[in-house]
């Protein structure tokens, strides 16, 4: 039976070292299980080329040009990456891996295909069964144009580095936390995505749009032709959500990151980067910046481990580098880039001291557009992210540039009037009286006016029970420590219970003074803060 795509011999070609199948027939089991999973995943029946018997199929002495060109003419090439696969003298490397890559590099489909979700994937889909040497990773990345995206079947515990088996799913000490059944499912899903990507590319080519990308942001609905296949129209609508930079994690969280990626996509997000973490530091930095530039927010999953460190600096790990890059964008006042940190340590395992230091650093530097989440699970987190990212555009309310924005509660309006009259003689001032049943959208109005003021003042005498919650909510709304406008909480010392009503936080000044001193105290703070 030929491939489901005309012009191809097989749908999948399995490339492996025979030694990796000798001990427990791991490769044979994998192919068997994958084929069963594919039947349940794809409507099409796929053909797999797998040379189980070393005496059959392609042999060392065969004329490679003749035999390989026929058998390697497959849609997807699956190399089983083991301790010995990346041996440049081996048959699998010389006669299968390199020829497949070279044969397809200049073909009409190419090595990389655009998936239905808009991500790019290679038709070389590695399954990794051992933690391989860094040199081997670099060799693979070099051949795969600097990227390695693998589905891992690795069982790792103290002193153990072997392939993950089906029966290991019942064991609890696999440090990678991967489950064989799930990895098989991931492999089948990846195959499905690539097949759909190839089919879509073929369909688009037939329609005269060879470089069609389903998630181009500027693709207007007017360009959707009624004659386009249904699946293409669906893809345009479905994948128009925000793009998330899902930061690469330390190794022990790799499976959690993959799970998060799937959930994000199911929730309508585009996820970048769509490749495995590059091992080369320069490539890693470049890919991080490239992916971040495409995103509207970033998500950083942090666990017990600090992660791989840069050779030149022990203080900077790969996860920390990504966080710092995202933080820069969140700190840019001209952008609304959200940085979300999800701290999800494994219970019962100690958080490494360098990681604790990093976590504390993040906690103490929460600024505008940054969120530190303790969500109990990925679905809740993604739900929150979606609510946050898809929030409605706010309308511009009637605000104006001013020196002082003075806010008080209706309970204190008589006293506030006297104070604002005194301050208003020296500085331009805007006032707002919060009435319990007022019509105004106080939160949004306050947020917008505070941003246009040099100093915001929250004043109270009798309304202390309102003033403290109000300033806390507004401090959060305007960006907390990164707020461009400082906020002053000033209360009168009568009633005496006000003495304890203060709020300490970055960019906040808190004072309790007598009624007569309030105007002068406001002016003093204004001068000190604005004209230091």
């Amino acid at each position: 039976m030929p491939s489901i795509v005309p012009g191809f011999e097989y749908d999948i070609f399995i490339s492996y070292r025979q030694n990796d199948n000798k001990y427990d027939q791991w490769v044979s089991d994998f192919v068997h299980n994958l084929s069963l999973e594919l039947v349940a995943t794809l409507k099409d029946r796929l053909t797999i080329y797998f040379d189980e018997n070393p005496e059959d199929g392609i042999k060392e002495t065969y004329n490679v040009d003749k035999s390989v060109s026929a058998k390697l003419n497959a849609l997807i090439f699956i190399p089983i990456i083991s301790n010995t696969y990346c041996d440049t003298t081996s048959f699998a490397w010389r006669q299968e891996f390199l020829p497949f890559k070279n044969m397809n590099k200049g073909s009409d489909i190419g090595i990389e295909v655009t998936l239905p979700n808009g991500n790019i994937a290679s038709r070389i889909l590695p399954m990794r069964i051992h933690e391989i040497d860094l040199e081997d990773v670099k060799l693979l990345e070099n051949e795969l144009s600097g990227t390695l995206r693998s589905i891992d079947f690795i069982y790792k515990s103290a002193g153990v580095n072997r392939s993950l088996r089906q029966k290991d799913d019942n064991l609890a000490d696999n440090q990678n936390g991967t489950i064989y059944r799930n990895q098989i499912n991931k492999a089948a899903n990846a195959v499905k995505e690539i097949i759909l990507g190839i089919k879509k590319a073929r369909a688009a080519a037939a329609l005269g749009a060879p470089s069609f990308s389903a998630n181009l942001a500027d693709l207007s609905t007017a360009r959707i032709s009624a004659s386009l296949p249904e699946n293409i129209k669906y893809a345009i609508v479905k994948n128009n959500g925000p793009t998330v930079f899902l930061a690469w994690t330390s190794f022990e969280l790799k499976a959690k990151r993959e799970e998060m990626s799937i959930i994000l996509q199911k929730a309508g997000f585009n996820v970048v980067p769509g490749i495995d973490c590059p091992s080369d530091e320069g490539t890693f930095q470049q890919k991080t910046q490239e992916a971040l530039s495409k995103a509207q927010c970033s998500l950083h999953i942090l666990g017990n481990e600090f992660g791989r460190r840069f050779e030149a600096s022990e203080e900077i790990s790969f996860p920390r580098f990504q966080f710092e890059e995202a933080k820069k964008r969140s700190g840019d006042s001209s952008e609304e880039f959200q940085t979300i940190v999800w701290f999800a340590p494994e219970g019962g395992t100690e958080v490494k001291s360098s990681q604790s230091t990093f976590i504390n650093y993040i906690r103490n530097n929460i600024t505008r557009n940054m969120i530190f989440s303790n969500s109990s699970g990925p679905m809740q987190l993604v739900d929150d992210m979606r609510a946050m990212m898809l929030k409605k555009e706010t309308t511009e309310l009637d605000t104006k540039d001013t020196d002082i924005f003075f806010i008080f509660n209706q309970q204190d309006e008589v006293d506030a009037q006297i104070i604002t009259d005194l301050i208003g003689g020296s500085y331009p001032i805007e006032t707002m009286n919060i009435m319990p049943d007022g019509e105004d959208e106080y939160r949004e109005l306050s947020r917008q006016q505070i941003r246009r003021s040099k100093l915001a003042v929250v004043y109270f005498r009798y309304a202390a029970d309102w003033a403290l919650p109000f300033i806390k909510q507004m401090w959060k709304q305007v960006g907390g420590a990164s707020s461009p406008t400082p906020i002053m909480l000033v209360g009168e010392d009568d009633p005496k219970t006000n003495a304890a009503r203060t709020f300490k936080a970055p960019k906040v000044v808190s004072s309790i003074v007598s009624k007569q001193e309030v105007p002068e105290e406001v002016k003093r703070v204004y001068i000190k803060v604005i004209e230091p």
Partner: protein
Amino acid sequence: MLDEIKICPYTGLRPFTEEESIYFKGRDEHIDQATRQLEKNKFIMLTGASGDGKSSLVYAGIIPNAKAGFLKASFSNWSVVDFRPERNPLQNLSRTLANQLGVKAETVQTELNYGFSALIDIYKASPLYYDVRSPEWLNATDKEKNEKRRKASNLIILADQFEEFFTNPENFQKGVPSQEAMSVTNLLLETARIALEENLPIYVIITMRSDYIGQCAAFRGLPEYIGFS
């Protein structure tokens, strides 16, 4: 003067408290939805899986939002009567309500035993409430009115972890609620109903694990209110 304060926003796995509301972020849309719901219906039931942040949403979101003046109500101040049913729901409700009103818990419990409008009546008779149509208010001086305004307070009744009505045998046995459980549920629903009818500043919030929604049918009127909210 500024930027000297170090903060630590991480609470671990326990819910965020009202004091920690400044670190509770990312749920503004949910808070706004719940606030609008309360303004409109005076009642909301928040359901969800265990640990998905229902209590945090109330304590660090809805309540601070209301106290900041972002939930439109009659008065500037807010009193929160929050209780968990545990094994003595009526006693727990009475204790926290009495605490807010500054009266004896036994007195409140005796009144609440009557059910229906009992909670509303207690509130109306307390310094937390004044009626602008009453002769007492109309005849008061400005000073007296200001005094009343300062004492007046909207009321939030929060029944947190409502599933305890089903998980404790004292409250629920063989599919049947105890008399005490019925009384408290009746009080919550009637309070919300009358508050809506008379436009009183009382708001009822219930949080419950979604696993128990099916069992709410054991309480008269409750399923309708779940649909209502």
